[in-house]
């Protein structure tokens, strides 16, 4: 309940945050604090310093771009929930609970890479790009390359996650997020995000991101491949997900076995795909 002591810095710009990180290499960045502070309160984390990036103006807000959207890393779940963002608005509504959504941020959540977090499934399904700035400059990381394992991302020491880019999804695109929350923690036991593009009665593109099921979020590539180029009726979806999730690849914990997670992957994948397809075709 009582975090350990730390030095506190408040950065007013990304450049200042990067400079502070160089001065305090062991420091952790403080965004909304809704992953980090709980860990510190349980004394599972004890960083010597926190660099508060929660007030950097350039990190906030959702901007429309020619090719889609740019979401500042410090945009809260609540701002996303009440936005027009495809898929992501729906996903944000599933994150924790309303008071948490008022504080927690997309950047903080992605950088923390909790295996049960919701956004990872969505950014994978959307083919989003994650922008990071470090002492060496800026780089764009495709979502597919971002999640590296349990609480691990491809962000490097000294880098700040600044923005998430989403592609524009116009006519013919559909999406859905299906989540089975842990009844206590609210994290996803399994969460499935599906994005499909319908063209001429068939699925031109299919992307499925899955969170909660494994050490880090992943794409259901086999399912995607089986469905691409085909009409996505119930039968097609059912046969596409058949055998697509091997329990031995999935997490097992005292609440849910890997077998159960595999079953959830199947069920939620079907539901998400059918709902996404319906949206794409109506």
């Amino acid at each position, binding site marked *: *309940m*009582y*975090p*350990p*002591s730390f030095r506190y810095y408040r950065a007013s710009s990304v450049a200042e945050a990067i400079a502070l990180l160089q001065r305090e290499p062991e420091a952790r960045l403080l965004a909304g604090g809704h992953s980090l502070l709980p860990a510190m309160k*349980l*004394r599972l984390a004890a960083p010597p310093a926190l660099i508060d990036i929660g007030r950097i103006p350039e990190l906030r807000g959702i901007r429309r771009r020619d090719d889609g959207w740019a979401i500042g890393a410090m945009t809260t779940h609540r701002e996303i929930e009440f936005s027009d963002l495809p898929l992501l608005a729906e996903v944000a509504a599933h994150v924790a609970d309303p008071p948490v959504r008022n504080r927690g941020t997309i950047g903080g959540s992605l950088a923390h890479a909790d295996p049960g977090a919701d956004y990872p499934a969505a950014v994978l399904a959307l083919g989003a790009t994650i922008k990071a700035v470090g002492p060496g400059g800026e780089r764009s990381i495709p979502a597919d390359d971002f999640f590296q394992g349990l609480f691990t991302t491809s962000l490097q020491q000294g880098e700040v996650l600044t923005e998430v880019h989403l592609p524009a999804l116009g006519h013919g695109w559909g999406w859905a997020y299906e989540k*089975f929350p*842990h*009844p*206590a*923690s609210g994290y996803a036991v399994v969460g499935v995000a599906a994005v499909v593009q319908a063209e001429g009665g068939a699925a031109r593109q299919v992307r499925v991101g899955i969170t909660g099921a494994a050490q880090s979020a992943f794409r259901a590539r086999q399912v995607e491949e089986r469905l691409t180029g085909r009409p996505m009726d119930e039968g097609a979806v059912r046969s596409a997900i058949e055998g697509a999730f091997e329990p031995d690849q999935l997490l097992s914990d*005292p*609440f*849910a*076995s890997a*077998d*159960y997670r595999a*079953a*959830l992957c*199947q*069920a939620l994948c079907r539901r998400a795909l059918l709902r996404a397809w319906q949206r794409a075709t109506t």
Partner: protein
Amino acid sequence: MVQATGRRYIGAAIKRKEDPRFITGRGTYVDDLAPPGTVYAAMVRSPYPHARIRSIDTRRAREMPGVLAVFTGADLEGVNPNPVGWLVPELRAVPYPVMARDRVRYVGEIVAVAIAEDRYLAEDAAQAVEVDYEPLPAVGDATKAVQAGAPAVHDQVPDNVAFRLPFGDQAAVDAAFTTAQRVVRLELVNQRLVPSAIEPRAALASYDPATDQLTLWLTSQNPHLIRLLLSAFVLGLPEHKVRVISPDVGGGFGSKIPLYSEECIVAWAARRLGRPVKWTAKRSESFLSDRHGRDHHTVAEMALDGEGRVTALRVRTVANLGAYLSTLGPAIPTWAYIPLLSGQYVIPHIYAEVVGAYTNTPPTDAYRGAGRPEACYLIERLMDVAARELGLDPAEFRRRNFVPPDRFPYQTSVAVVYDSGNYPGALDKALALADYQGMRRQQEEARREGRYVGIGISCYIEACGFAPSKLVGQLGAQAGLWESALVRAHPTGRVTVLTGAHSHGQGHETTFAQIVAEELGISLDDVEIVHGDSGAIPMGMGTYGSRSLAVGGSAIVRALERVKDKARRIAAHLLEAAPEDVELREGRFYVRGVPDRGVDWAAVALQAYLAHNLPEGMEPGLEASAFYDPENFTFPFGTHISMVEVDPETGLVKVLRYVAVDDAGNIINPLVFEGQVHGGIAQGVGQALLEWGRFDEDGTPLAASFMEYALPRASHLPSFKTDVQVTPCPHNPLGAKGIGEAGTIAATPCIVNAVVDALSPLGIRHLDTPLTPPRVWEAIRQARARQA
């Protein structure tokens, strides 16, 4: 002067008097208090379920900034173990030290305390205490603990059996089974629960050397009892120099009955340091240090004759006591369910056997319902399974076995005598309220669509109104279970009532005041209820077991009768009439039959203190106390009906509808009554679907925070549809029985019966709680594999 009022208060849905302070944030809970100079305690707890303590090094912690002291068990010279308040025959009791010295027996057992100037510094220091442990083999499951070769939790109890308690005529029961037409057998687990009042426990102690007075503010349901245990048993202090105050308390549910180690430690430390010492549980600490509830493993068998009537019941339970005996540990979480095993039914022969087992887990004690949920779950599950095997509708099968309304008082075969009841009445009312036939039609339709919809019924009974002191004394209680009240009329006619009951959400400040206001014919605002302070209230046994109204309320009525009697004699004197001709109506004493001759209640109260014109020989003053010792338990009952749907792909159970008809005798405040039912249902649904105080085989907790332990949220529950039936209690002056636990007792089997009903087409006969989605899914998978 108070004004007389003709208002009827008893039975009125009155907004609570205590609410204004709570809705404006002005309640006073223990952690809200911080007398000048307060310092903060943080506990160092064992991370091992069983270990020898090789050494404890507190040097680094003691030298940290702001740290006043670090104490270990070795420092607590002269502090005695926490006593046991309920004994059973041949109990192999073990001492429960308030701080471990050389061995720890559960994760969370206290090994040291750090005391510092603020909460954060105390936590830092506690973390810096270095304890060298030698882990020992451990056992967390009670059924495994009593098997040969299990690690011994206590060397002096090598088989971990604290006691074995047989009850009933075993030969007669065995004979009934021999001649039975059908036997239904069920093995069931009543999982461990963590009570989880939203206010974590807290303790603040302050010592005044000038008066040698120790004052404790505790989150306790029974401050007087704690004062006695703490002063006379643990600390050896003069009881009259110890004052225990339970201010506003944020829920208890039984977990705030026992005396806890932390309370003893802050009391001792405040005297030692000469500073007020406060400890407030972190929630993750609550999971390790609050008393847990339930944790029964039971094999139950029911014998039936050829007409679908129950002839006998045979039950064997292994109950998990945890590592030590809590205050009521040997009784409430173990055998206390036996007297309710007859349910609402005529069961001629019952035999039960309970083994109380030590394990390397936190101790168990009372949790909402405390014994009655275990009994109700067992009997209502058996009734459902039996009905299914007989091909009878579960409502019809229950009706066939009910104790008929004309047989009360009804002597059960498990010692207790049911005071009053009308079981078919409550069942019929619930069936109508739920539109049971309509529900069954909906279920048929859903099944045709391939959906899994189920309906559950539970007809519960509970024993409340704890308790006739002589009887519980015979059963091993080390205390009487009467309640006290002192009614004090002030010279203005306003009234203060001191009650030994304690409200931690129950609304006594309103319901008790309603009784007084109605009896005296004065306004509710002119009555103040004082509770929770051993320094103000003569004596009290506290609040638990739905006892406050039936016992505490009855004590108030008795004290009121004495006050009214004296007031009537004063009034008669003033009116120059015979006392027996004077009656009190709507705040005024009248001479019977002479409506224009009267004197107000307030004038009489004033005269009692003026004492200028009192009857010859009468003492001044107008107050009286009473100790009400009930002559029997009360037996509330009712029928709950639920409808659920199971998602076969995920195992998720959704509660679609929940209907409750409760009969707890006369009702003082319907709002408060309903609120108790609602909250109880939620906790019962919690046990059925969500909550699980789970440990691995060696006693390591797997649910140690709200991240793992699921409390019901608003979104887990539907709105409830409730109604009442009123069958008054015949043996107390209010005719009230108690409603605090009914919902919790009824709801668990109600939901489980519905889920099993939903899954019955798959051949599923029973599932153990909690019915978490993975467990339900697994059961469906296995059932389908069997069917294939």
